[in-house]
């Protein structure tokens, strides 16, 4: 069926060519504007830098989480030899291939770690160990120090870039040759790389997010970031395919069965995110030990409680009940609505992870943070458009493509 399609059907709409420049411009302007809001709106320069960096980090995690989700989806597709997803996997590969470019956006954080005096972002980031307030954090400087932090970040981002680069390169090669061995190679590596993925995502979440409040710890934190990333990733996939199909592309390659399955994943990861977030909360709530509850303490005070408790409604109850019915998951408009909803609440979730540590809630700060968030998402879309501009949107050489095209969910 694919072979009969004209290859135009598998390309980005022509009207979109060069639009990535618009995205980059908009992104840079908005991020600069958010920086301005922080420096004007904050009571002091130090506070401004502090809020600005927390906001930038939260938005950076938001942007890279899609790539993390895409990487996992590609790996797990090969690990399980999935046939149904062969027609939608190329978009996941393209999303994951934004990682090398989004990784460059980590540079400002490294600069702040290297040059800021005092803790603009990370509690442990002082030149002198004595300057660190908490003695517990002082004891952790063997791991949490500038040079080692930067080394780990670079290694982690490099490993991810290598993984996604390898899978993308082989996938593109297969477009031309259709060689089955390329699939077998990727299957072979998927198991090992899956373990590396788990370790690096955990390390990244510990380093980048958890160490903001360095005396707090949660061993489940990597899983939390993973569940949130998958939630955001599937939402992005659904929205992207809907937009592409509205522009007349991929009409036959992605059908309601694929949407149904992506909807199931979105629903499943709604539940999984809630499960992980609640597990983390319940243990600390029950133990009620000061150094363990501190992280939640800042999140249920100073105005942040509305966000934290609100997440239970908007990130769990509404998508859970909304996506519970298969009729919604098989209904284009319904699924599109909840996917857009998920993209927004995923950003709120990343805000919840990072921002309360910057200081009390204030509307002006949230306004700046929102500008930065839209700017960062705009940059991300720019990267994605640039990546997709010269590649077919379906892996046409995949030996399992026919499975995906004739795929139907069992039962009605």
């Amino acid at each position, binding site marked *: 069926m694919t072979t009969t399609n004209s290859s135009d059907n598998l390309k980005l709409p022509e009207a979109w060519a060069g639009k990535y420049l618009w995205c980059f411009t908009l992104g840079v302007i908005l991020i600069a504007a958010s920086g301005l809001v922080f420096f004007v709106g904050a009571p002091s320069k130090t506070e401004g830098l502090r809020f600005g960096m927390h906001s930038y980090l939260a938005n950076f995690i938001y942007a890279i989480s899609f790539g993390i989700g895409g990487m996992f989806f590609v790996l797990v597709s090969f690990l399980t030899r999935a046939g149904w997803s062969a027609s939608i996997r190329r978009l996941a590969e393209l999303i994951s291939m934004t990682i090398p470019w989004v990784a460059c956006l980590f540079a400002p954080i490294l600069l702040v770690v290297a040059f800021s005096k005092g803790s603009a972002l990370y509690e442990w980031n002082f030149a002198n160990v004595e300057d660190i307030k908490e003695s517990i954090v002082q004891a952790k400087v063997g791991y949490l120090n500038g040079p080692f932090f930067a080394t780990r970040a670079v290694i982690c981002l490099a490993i991810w870039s290598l993984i996604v680069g390898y899978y993308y390169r082989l996938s593109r090669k297969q477009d031309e040759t259709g060689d089955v061995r390329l699939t077998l190679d990727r299957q072979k590596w998927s198991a090992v790389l899956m373990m590396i993925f788990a370790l690096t995502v955990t390390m990244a979440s510990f380093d980048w997010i958890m160490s903001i409040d360095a005396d707090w710890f949660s061993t489940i934190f990597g899983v939390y970031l993973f569940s949130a990333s998958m939630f955001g990733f599937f939402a992005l996939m659904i929205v992207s395919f809907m937009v592409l199909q509205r522009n007349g592309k991929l009409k036959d390659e992605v059908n309601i069965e694929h949407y149904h399955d992506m909807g199931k994943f979105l629903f499943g990861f709604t539940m999984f995110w809630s499960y992980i977030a*609640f597990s983390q*909360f*319940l243990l600390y*709530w*029950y133990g*009620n030990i000061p150094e363990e509850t501190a992280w939640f303490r800042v999140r249920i005070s100073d105005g942040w409680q509305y966000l934290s408790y609100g997440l239970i409604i908007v990130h769990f109850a509404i998508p859970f009940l909304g996506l*519970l*019915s*298969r009729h919604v998951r098989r209904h284009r408009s319904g699924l599109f609505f909840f996917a857009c909803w998920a993209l927004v609440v995923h950003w709120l979730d990343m805000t919840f992870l990072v921002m309360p540590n910057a200081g009390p809630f204030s509307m002006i700060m949230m306004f700046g943070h929102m500008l930065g968030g839209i700017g960062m998402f705009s940059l991300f879309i720019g990267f994605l458009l640039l990546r997709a501009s010269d590649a077919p949107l379906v892996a046409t050489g995949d030996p399992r493509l026919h499975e995906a095209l004739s795929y*139907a969910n*069992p*039962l*009605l």
Partner: protein
Amino acid sequence: MSEKKSQAATAKPKSFGWIAEYVDEHSLLTASRKVRDSGYTKTDAYTPFPVHGIDEALGIKPTILPFIVLGAGFTGLFTALVLQYWTNAYDYKYIISGKPFASWPANIPVAFELTILFSAFTTFLGMWALNGLPKLSNPLFNSERFDRVTNDRFFLHVDSRDKYFNRESVKDLLAGTKPESLEEVIEDSSPTTLPSVIWLGLGFLFCASLVPVAVVLNMRAGNDENPRWHVFFDMDFQPKKKAQQTTTIFADARIARPQVPGTVARGSLVNEDPFYLGYDPTKQASLNATSNVRLVSAADDKAEKPADASPDTPSDKTGSVDAAKPTEPANVVEPAKDIPAANAAPASPVPAPSATPAAAAAPVAAGGPNLPWISEFPLEVDASLIALGKTKFEIYCSVCHGYAGDGDGLVHRRAEQLQQGYWLPPTSVHDPRIQEQPIGNIFYTISNGKGKMAGYGTVLSPKERWAIVSYVRALQRSRNAQIDDVPVELRAKIEEAKKAE
């Protein structure tokens, strides 16, 4: 069976509808769509494997099971929340980990599990009910060709109970789909009711199940003078001897054997040594007639057991004594001249030798036994013993008495916070009354408890208890320390601090 069948055969056989046979699923799907479009709804397809799209082709409406399951899930959620609220916050209020009685985060796991449980059971049972299961037989099994449905053939069945069913028109319709074969299925004429033997069996089982209930009710309600039934005879009457019974195995015919000379029963070693008691039982014997008699009789292996062996003081609770340490019977009452108990409280009048047990027990009732406490440690006191005492004190005592012994432990503070009127504050070890208590008395209190405080004799070894006593003494000394108590090399430091003030 065959008789009945032949009887039924005389009646006109009732049609169960038509079945059409197909060789592949594509022709089945095509035929299904055609039948659906003709308006028939009581149809079904039988295939050797799941065929995608067959529901749509047959026009089968989506099941309502999900809504039933959703309702069951909410019922489970609601049940769990109400159950937990009622038990924790209403019926049996109990503080757990200092959390509120109605503690929603703690309720969520149970609510989650019950939601899943109710949903899962409803899904399973609802699926059976909606499919009309269990269905023990189907008239289609009468068709011989139909056997191939589990192998390589596909069948489409139009039921005669369909409201538009017409024998000839259905036949024409199905014939138009070019089936491999077309056959009319005859309704199974065998009786649909269960055979009477099964009813009989079920009835018997039901009646049998009532017997135990009836027996129990009869036992509980009746007032028969006869002994109860022994359902398990060999459990009620085991081939063993109980205390106070006779035997032919031993010459003295007693089944309860006397202690073998030179041995000590487990847990009975203690009663003679102040190390285990905190007081001197020899002196106690001289003050208490009953103990005295006991001690004497225990010292003599051949003595008969005293008839009035009712325990009157805690020290006598085991009733067995170490025979290896015979003690001189002391009939003379010695005034407690070297008994430091005199310090603690005005010494209660020493009981006369002829005092009744009731009189001897009087001090117990007054708030604590007045025993000949020892005032010297029965073991060597050194830094390691005090360190052991500190460890054990902080584990077992500090929760109530506080780390410094002021009686302000966490349990006490929590009780005050809750304003529990019935809470009796723990005693401070710095209370003058406790400071004056002889160490034996403190040891006794630790071992056996006092007031609301439980005894720790079962969890702490005697050495650990003495270690705690030594640590309590150290705590008390810390509030009343003299300069002589400070090591010589540190005294200068204190003098300096004094001058600085």
